[in-house]
Structures are given as C-alpha cells and as structure tokens.
C-alpha cells in the first residue's frame, strides 16, 4: 500500500463524533479540531483537542501549514540575499531575524560593527519589539472580547511602521540590518519623529493598562489561569516573556549583552506565579522598558559610520562609484557574487520579543551559506501549550494561546 493512501486512511479514521467512555452524559470524551484557519489560533495552527465536557484533557498542536522551506532557500542564496529570506520567518520581528543572521555571519567574518550602527540597530530592534508586543496585545485583547484595544494598539503600530518606512523605505521586512551595520543612516526628521513617539508611548501604555487592568472580564479570564512553574518551563526550553512571567529574570540583553545593550539602563520585568495575567503584565511592562532603551540610544547616538568600512563586506557609498575604479570593482563583486565567508560554524542568540532567537550558520568558504537554521522561540514555546492548558476550560485554551504569542511563520519557517 502506498504511503499516500495509508495517510488518507489514517486521516479518515479520525472521528470527530463523541465517544462514550463511562456511564451517563458527563463521561464522554470529544475530539475537537480547531483550525488550521481559525481566527483564535493566531495563524495557521491546527489543534486537536480532547475534551471532557468543557475541560481540556489533551491538546496536540499540528503545525507545518506555512512551512515554506526558507532554510533550504537560504542555502541557495548569497549571504546578503539571505537577509530578506530570514526576515520572513517570524514576520512580526523581522529586525530580530535579520539581526540574528547578521550577527552569526559577523562572528564568522570577525568584523566589528561601528558604534553608530550598533545604536541604530538597538533603536530599530526595540521599536520592533514594541510593535510586536502591540500586535500581540491588540489581537489577544480581541480574543478576550475587547474589540477597541485592537484599534488603539494598531494606531501606535502605525506610527512605528511609519518610522520604519522613513529609515528604510519599507514598512515590513525592511532589510535594514546588514552584515557589518545597517543599510543607511537615519534620514533628517527621523530623530524628531522618534523623540515624539518615545514621549508619547508611555502615556499610551498607561491608557492600555487603564482599559484592561480594571476590566473585570479581562481579570477573570487571566488571573490564576493556566499557570506553569519555572522548572517545567525550563525543561521545555521556554524562554522570553513566558519564562520571565514565572519569575526567572533570564534576558539575553542583560545576560549576554550584544550590540551595545550593556550601555543602556533598563529593568527586566518578571512575574510571580506564571499565570496568564503575569504573561500579560510582563509584556505590557516591556513596552515601557523598550521605550526607555530607545530614549537612551537616541540621546547617546554616537557619530561616525553606520556600517563597517570593510569594502569586502559592505557596499561602497554610491557617490564613490563615479570616481573610484576600486569602489566600482568592489560594488560589482559584492552585487554579483557576494562576499565569501571563511569556513566555520556560529550560533548567535539574541532576545527576540518571544524569547531566545538563535541563528546557526555554517559556512563552507563559498559565497553561500551551507546551512542556516533559526532556533525560533515560538517553535519551542508551542510545546508548553499542552502542559499549560491541561485540565483547564476550553475558553481558557484560547486565552492561553493568545498569551503564548506564537507566530506561525516562525514556527513553520
């Protein structure tokens, strides 16, 4: 029998009808299929839920519906062409994907990023973190029935996307972070607009809190719902706000500072019991901390080049092409073949909005990577769904999934 028909047979054998396992109407198990195209699954996530009445006894996440083989595609592209590919993995934190990949390649090339480049990276990474948390907050509140939060969050997100458009020309998948620095220096007017946003953002975050923190429905849906302790989370490999909500202050920005994060003063918000309310509070508090980092980075933005002066890696400035033969040769070489990376392997972890985002790059000495792998936090964190929602109500499953903040583009890659 061929594999295909075997698969069909197993698929057809899944029964969605209720099955009585005991006496009476209260003792039956129901297998319920949620997704893959259900608005509450935050993407194309399919969940096979085993229910006993309203209570979830087991959840099996089924993924792979947006698997596009990005890691395979990357092996066929020159290093600088990989950046737009990896940005499309976790589509809400594109700066982080690019940063992890560029960081790994820079480790292999052993090049330094100039201070201004590092600060500009920090500014954009933290803007991206706020943007990602705003999308999470808006859509999660929507799942809990708070419609208006969605509009408020997306209003601020719009400002951030405008800033991205100013600095890079794109609103999403900006390709701003390059190997060796950033694509371009920030344009005139950017600093003023960003300063206005930084001034405005804490006030807006206060407003979100005022809308949700005293909302009886939100509190009932979140408080003491689906907690998971720190040790279980660590065993499952969970990082990011989910781990911090359980009281473990693990944050790579503090623990292993990269890209000048040690220059800034900020706090790591942590929770106490690790329930949905703590998860919500930790991410909400991160909005303030990220704003503080941007403020400090803007204040202390150093002068100097925004990208490494190494012409073997970074494109020469446009104006040099008309006068310098050398620059023209380098430009031609970089655009056609790209730069070669010496043999080696690197794993570069950074703190993405969802946890540890690590990029593994293996170089074989050619102009294309031999292997690019993203350790995406959503992929690992998704495993915590079943232990979190076991023996909880099905309505809490939806709330917990929202607080888990999985991005299916990152899970499936």
């Amino acid at each position, binding site marked *: 029998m*061929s*594999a*295909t*028909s*075997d*698969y069909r047979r*197993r698929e057809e054998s899944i029964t969605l009808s209720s099955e009585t396992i005991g006496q009476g109407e209260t003792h039956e198990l129901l297998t319920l299929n949620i997704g893959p195209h259900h608005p509450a699954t935050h993407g194309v996530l399919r969940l096979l839920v085993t229910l006993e009445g309203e209570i979830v006894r087991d959840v099996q996440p089924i*993924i*792979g519906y947006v*698997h596009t*083989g990005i*890691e*395979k*595609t990357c*092996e*066929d592209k020159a290093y600088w062409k990989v950046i737009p590919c990896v940005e499309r993995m976790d589509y809400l934190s594109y700066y982080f994907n690019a940063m992890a990949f560029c960081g790994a390649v820079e*480790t*292999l090339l*052993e090049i330094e990023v100039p201070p201004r480049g590092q600060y500009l990276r920090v500014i954009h990474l933290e803007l991206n973190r706020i943007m990602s948390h705003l999308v999470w907050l808006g859509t999660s509140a929507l799942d809990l029935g708070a419609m208006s939060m969605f509009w408020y969050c997306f209003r601020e997100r719009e400002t951030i996307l405008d800033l991205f458009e100013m600095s890079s020309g794109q609103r999403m998948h900006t390709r701003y972070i390059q190997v060796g620095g950033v694509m371009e220096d920030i344009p005139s007017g950017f600093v003023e607009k960003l300063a206005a946003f930084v001034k405005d953002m804490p006030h807006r975050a206060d407003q979100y809190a005022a809308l949700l923190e005293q909302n009886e429905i939100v509190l009932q849906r979140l408080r003491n719902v689906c907690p998971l302790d720190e040790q279980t989370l*660590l*065993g*499952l*490999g*969970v990082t990011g706000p989910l781990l911090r909500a359980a009281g473990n202050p*693990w944050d790579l920005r503090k*623990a*292993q500072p990269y890209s000048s994060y040690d220059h800034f003063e900020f706090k790591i918000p942590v929770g106490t019991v690790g329930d949905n309310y703590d998860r919500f509070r930790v991410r909400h508090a991160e909005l303030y901390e990220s704003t503080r980092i941007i403020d400090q980075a803007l204040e202390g933005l150093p002068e100097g080049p925004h990208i490494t002066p190494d012409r073997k890696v970074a494109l020469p400035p446009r104006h040099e092409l008309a006068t310098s033969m050398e620059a023209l040769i380098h430009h031609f070489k970089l655009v056609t073949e790209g730069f070669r990376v010496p043999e*080696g*392997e*690197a*794993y570069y*972890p950074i703190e993405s909005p969802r946890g*540890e985002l*690590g990029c*593994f790059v*293996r170089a074989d000495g050619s102009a294309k990577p*031999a*292997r690019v*792998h993203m*350790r995406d936090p959503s*992929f*690992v964190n*998704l*495993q915590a769904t079943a232990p979190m929602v076991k023996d909880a109500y099905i309505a809490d499953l939806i709330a917990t999934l929202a607080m888990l903040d999985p991005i299916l583009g990152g899970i*499936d*890659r």
Partner: protein
Amino acid sequence: MPDATGLELIAHELRDADGDSVLGTEFAHGRAALIAEPRLVHGVLERLKARGYGFLASLHGCDYYPEEPRLGVLYELLDMHEVDRISVKARVDTGAPHIPSVVDLWPGANHPEREVYDMFGVVFDGHPDLRRILMPEDYEGFPQRRDFPIGGEPVLFTYNEENSYGKWQ
C-alpha cells in the same frame, strides 16, 4: 563560553567518565564544541547537564556533505548561572542514521528532534512520538539534505495525489 583550556578540561572529565564518548574538540570564533560519539551522546549530555549546562537552548541538524559521516546533530547547551554556552556535535552516517533521543533529559527536545528527523532523516531512538512535523506526513525524502534539489515540485491536488510526491528522482 569556556575558553580553549576550559573546553579541554571538560573533554578530559567526560573521557574519564566514559573513554570513547568524546572524539574531539573544536574551538573557533569563541564557540566551544565537543565532538561526541553518536551512540554515547546521551551520556555526554547527561553529564554536561549535571555539570551545570542545564538548559538545551537549541537542537538542530546539519548536512556536512560531501564529508563523511554526513549528518550532524548539534546541541547548544546553556548554563544560565554562569552564562556559559557549549555545543555538542554528533555525526551519523546516512546509512544508519541512529542517535539516542534526549527527550527524557529535556522534554523540550521533542519538537526539535522531530524537525531534525523530518528534514534530515536522523532517527532518534527512544523518542516518544517520532513523526514528521513540518512536512506532510506522507512526504518522501528529507528536504534539508544537501543532495535534495530545490523546487520543481508539482502542487498537490486530489486528482494527482497518488502520483505527486516523491517523483523528483
């Protein structure tokens, strides 16, 4: 990261515990890696876990084609107290790609091991539920291997499902 000397010390310790478990060490770009014998990788990881590297940050595969043995499984371990990372590499043959599962040490290794199985065909012995995770369940071949071509796959419809997959040869 342990420095080059620290890495050798760890390798010595592991060799004292089990003579054949560590085949070599690599230190480059500040990254410390232990090359482990695939059959004994579980013991190596268990000892490293007891030594403080208690968090499995990442588990991924890599195809070293045309080098032999081709398939590599890489474990990125993290010591959260000392803020220290070490990676463990185990290379297996495409002929008998078997390696012990570490799901009993870290339940979080479940999805990553399934992904490595899905993409490279490495079989994790002792894994509770070793199925494909990202590719369709009835997919044939291991797409992340270096000799697997890119693209050219027909779109699957009901009328051609019987002769669609696995026809790239």
